[in-house]
């Protein structure tokens, strides 16, 4: 696996990106913030099926 692919498939990456998004959106866009919060909650269930 290449280093780039390994980085792109980092399990923590979605949480990190969504966290940055939530911080950026929270003051300016409530609807987008709710979408990101939903995404974070959904991804947090990664350990279950």
């Amino acid at each position: 696996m290449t280093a780039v692919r390994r980085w792109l498939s980092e399990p923590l990456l979605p949480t990190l990106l969504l966290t940055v998004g939530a911080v950026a959106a929270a003051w300016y866009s409530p609807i987008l913030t709710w979408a990101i919060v939903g995404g974070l909650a959904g991804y947090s269930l990664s350990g279950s099926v």
Partner: protein
Amino acid sequence: MGLLAGGVCTATALWLVSGLTAPIPAAARHGVIIASALVFLARDAGWLRFPMPQNTRQVPQDVMQRHLIKGSLQFGFEMGTSVRTYVSASAPYVLGLALLLAGVDYWSALSAGLGFGLGRAATPLSRLTSTDGVDWDARLIGRLPVITIGTCLVLAVAFTVLFLRI
């Protein structure tokens, strides 16, 4: 598609019921949401232990064997609703409580439901991006505490900012 539909279904149901909480002062409702995020953070960190309701069953694998497309939609829908799954993190409970108490418009609830479905889809997508599923699983297990605890913390902060903004 199924995941998105399932997320929207649950979010819509919670939003419809949320009208019953409208008589409670907004400050109280918002305080409960933020406090719950911190309580559930403590739960995920292992500092507090208490059970939460969940239907501890999995969607049967043969759902997809009977009919691939319909089965995949059904599987995704049930995962998106989180009605038949193991809830291994507390953030979905925070989100559900927030949808019940926050008093948001339907577009916000819909966004949350769609986001939830996309978030659930991100897991298999991330795993597919890796060429070594076993390695990805091992990396995920090591990062799950950060993901679950961190998510509750981000939810607490995001809701605090959202409610201060109102």
